[in-house]
């Protein structure tokens, strides 16, 4: 670690008053981006209109599109600072904590997407994350608690990993990794340090500085953890005195050592992982702040300043090194207050640009000259779809079971793997589901579709108003004049019954459109 960074961080930590103002930070971000625009002759896209901004911000901060009412009142609001106010309001909401919890649950426990029984851990892990976010616990605190979660109990009475489904449960992280020291270590270094060490698990990696031994040094911090029995629900014990681990397929035994080559100082009786947790989250550790800010950046901009976000290394340079450094330092100086980063990023001109490309120079994603189109996660899509069609789940929800709404499960399956990053990839299966699936088909019939029923009852004589509400419900905007005209013509064909069917087809078209299915 460079001495200058360490010094800078120590100075910042000493003075709470240096906590950055989000507006200043936003301005500095835009200035840094502008330098590149100038040097690369990039013409950035124009500012997004209010409706585009509102939809994007809602998806990013609370995980769903806005309601028609929210759209209308935001559009009608004439105050100058309404965007900043909305950012603060959403960030302070319970819905944000809930969305934050889902996003990080998926990152901490990606295994549950593949192993269905791990879904029993989801509510508890989410509940824990949500509580911490609501209490505005610094990100360092969240990670420390996660990595030092107590595993107590003698051998005869090992630590139960899942007692009550909805009780906040950070142990899920360890249980989902099969209590395997190597898996816990590789997930932790990826997520919290932005480093891919697991490549060195079997052999020294030719492109990185990390050695095989260093990977196992990290695993050694978790060497004391053991599972009593098989499967993810098996209880755990921890032998805190065990501080060594054997390299895979080898007789070599290694001890815990930090990645900067320094040695941990064992404390009385405490598990070695507590020392790792402290080292990872120390304000002077440059990796931690950088990894988290870079990840939040990629969640909001589709591409990290370092991309892939968990592969920070010399041979994979950040697109804007100064910017990343400045942001990370501000994050550390603000006691890892993740809300500050959200607040600052959402206020930037960069975040508030339209996704409409007006110049070819905007096509380079790593320059952030326009908002890229981004995929919705399964949860974002389901919640948005449910809102658009006014879907009410009829599934039983017994408190001892995880969420089992069949429609939701189907949507999550279809969108598995999609997250904030990368391009949206419409799959044939997704297209088929939205074209022919039960949800769409139910929604677009006046008999079964709550939303359609509602608009037909409310505006029986005006297809123009019906179309307007459909647009507000799905695309979170009003139709353009041209769109209205085309669709009124389309709708006007045939008798009353076929006009209702036509309106259903218009709804079908909106639900299938890329504009509805993407974050943009």
């Amino acid at each position: 670690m460079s001495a200058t960074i360490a010094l800078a961080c120590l100075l910042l930590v000493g003075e709470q008053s240096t906590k950055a103002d989000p507006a200043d930070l936003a301005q500095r971000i835009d200035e840094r981006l502008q330098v590149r625009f100038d040097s690369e002759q990039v013409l950035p896209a124009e500012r997004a209109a209010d409706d585009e901004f509102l939809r994007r911000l809602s998806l990013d901060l609370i995980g769903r599109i806005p309601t028609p009412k929210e759209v209308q009142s935001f559009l009608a609001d004439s105050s100058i600072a309404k965007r900043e106010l909305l950012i603060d309001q959403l960030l302070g909401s319970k819905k944000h904590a809930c969305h934050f919890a889902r996003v990080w649950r998926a990152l901490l426990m990606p295994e549950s997407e593949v192993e269905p029984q791990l879904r029993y851990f989801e509510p508890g892990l989410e509940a824990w994350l949500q509580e911490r976010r609501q209490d505005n616990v610094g990100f360092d605190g969240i990670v420390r608690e996660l990595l030092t979660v107590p595993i107590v109990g003698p051998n005869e009475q090992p630590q139960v990993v899942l007692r009550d489904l909805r009780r906040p449960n950070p142990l899920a992280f360890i249980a989902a990794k099969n209590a395997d020291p190597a898996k816990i270590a590789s997930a932790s270094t990826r997520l919290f340090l932005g480093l891919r060490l697991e490549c060195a698990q079997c052999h020294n990696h030719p492109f990185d500085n990390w050695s095989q031994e260093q990977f196992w040094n990290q695993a050694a911090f978790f060497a004391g953890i053991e599972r009593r029995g098989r499967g993810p629900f098996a209880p755990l014990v921890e032998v805190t005195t065990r501080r060594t681990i054997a390299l895979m397929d080898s007789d070599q035994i290694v001890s815990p050592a930090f990645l900067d080559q320094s040695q941990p100082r064992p404390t009385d009786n405490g598990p070695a992982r507590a020392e790792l947790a402290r080292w990872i989250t120390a304000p002077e550790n440059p990796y931690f702040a950088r990894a988290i800010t870079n990840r939040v950046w990629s969640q909001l901009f589709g591409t990290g300043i370092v991309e892939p976000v968990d592969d920070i290394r010399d041979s994979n340079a950040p697109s804007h090194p100064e910017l990343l450094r400045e942001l990370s330092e501000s994050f550390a100086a603000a006691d890892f207050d993740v809300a500050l980063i959200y607040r600052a990023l959402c206020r930037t001109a960069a975040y508030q640009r339209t996704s409409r490309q007006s110049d070819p120079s905007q096509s380079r994603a790593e320059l952030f000259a326009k908002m890229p189109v981004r995929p919705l996660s399964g949860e974002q899509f389901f919640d948005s779809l449910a809102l658009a069609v006014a879907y009410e789940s009829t599934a039983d929800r017994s408190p001892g079971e995880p969420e089992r709404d069949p429609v939701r499960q189907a949507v999550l399956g279809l969108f598995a793997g999609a997250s904030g990053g990368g391009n949206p990839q419409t799959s044939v299966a997704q297209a088929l589901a939205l074209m022919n699936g039960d949800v769409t088909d139910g929604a677009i019939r006046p008999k079964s579709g709550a939303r359609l029923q509602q608009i037909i009852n409310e505006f029986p004589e005006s297809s123009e108003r019906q179309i307007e509400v459909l647009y507000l419900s799905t695309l979170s905007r009003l139709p353009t004049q041209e769109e209205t005209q085309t669709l009124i013509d389309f709708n006007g064909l045939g008798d009353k019954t076929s006009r209702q069917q036509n309106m259903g087809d218009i709804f079908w078209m909106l639900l299938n459109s890329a504009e509805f299915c993407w974050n943009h």
Partner: protein
Amino acid sequence: MVGINKAMRNFGLNQLTRRRWLQATSGSVAGAWLGGWFGSLASAMADSERSKRSCILLWMNGGPSQTDTFDMKLGHEHGGPFRSIATRAAGIQVCEHLPGIAQWTDRLAIIRSMSTKEGDHGRARDNLRTGYVPQASIQFPVLGSLISKESLGQAGDLPNYVSINSRGLFNPGMPPAGFLGPDYAPLLVGQDTDGNENGQRLAVENLALPKSVSTEQARARLELLHRMERKFLDARPGPAADGHRTAYAKAARMMSHEAAKAFQLDDEPKESRDAYGSSQFGQGCLLSRRLVERGVPFVEVSLGGWDTHDDNFRQVQNLCGALDMGWSALMQDLQQRGLLDSTLVVWMGEFGRTPAINPRLGRDHFPKAWSVVLGGGPISGGQIVGRTSADGTNVEERPVSTPDLLATICVALGIDPEKQNMSNVDRPIRLVDPLASPLLDIIS
């Protein structure tokens, strides 16, 4: 064009009017975009296409134990409790729990000297499935996508690459077709959202129109969609927009009667279904035959559960039950239909398992010396490639790398492994690393 004529007769004036209105106001662009929706399969399935080769990949997710299947170490402490049995090919023995496949060894080449470097599931899977060591910046396409591209148009309205029971096989957030783009992405079949494998119907979900929707109505609203979202997509050019349009066009084409029929396993006679076994894997093998029969060049059927760190022997015996029945029925069926000579069948996972048995009666990850089986197609069967040491821990003869294996598969399919594709990092990348030396001596 039978479908359309029939549709025209059946539908009322309103739908027709709506359709005419669309045509009148948007020109023929949408119509052209929909292309051969309904009825192009027959022409694409002309007999001349039949000469093309197909590949069925039986993917053993988790890494199957070579010591308990195709490279047994009888009498050694690593051997475990299973016995071996003689097979149709003289001198080749396999595990007693593979009696069906033992009858096909004269059409199989067993490679016992796979030697690879990745011991982590994700990285090994990427390595074996793409042929390259995973790198952060390059999105390597999987083998199915590569073959899919080389066999363009072979399968008419059916996709070129179908992946069956593949839940969890593809990395979250990483497109399987990599830099080749969504055109070459697999169609996934049998993805039950709860991840259950047994008793689920293998089907392409939502392939059929809802009952009350006529073909004409379906077509009209697709045209409406195409027309109304054009402006949005045009203003956001790139792979996402292209992929969105392609996915809808493909979905619409697959809905055609002929294409959809390929997936209806109910059409198979009962004895044919029973021969494959009732497992999801067995039924997947049956579906793979139906698809290959219709010209689909690459089908993979996945069988998971091979990550047997605990209780290896009981688990392997169970897995072998489903595997043996499905695989041997597939060989039999392909031969009966005259498809075995043109269909390469590959059995592989991401690595093997330690010859040493751990204290939990399990075997752990082992990329150093393991087995893969190639069969059918131009493979000259009854052969063993390579040899491992008596304790199974080392390859003693003809080590085979990942590129060697993938190049062999390409050559067996009549595809030049050195052909190049343009990648996402703006430099051409060969189908398989040119350092590969394919096992030409097992290809006739």
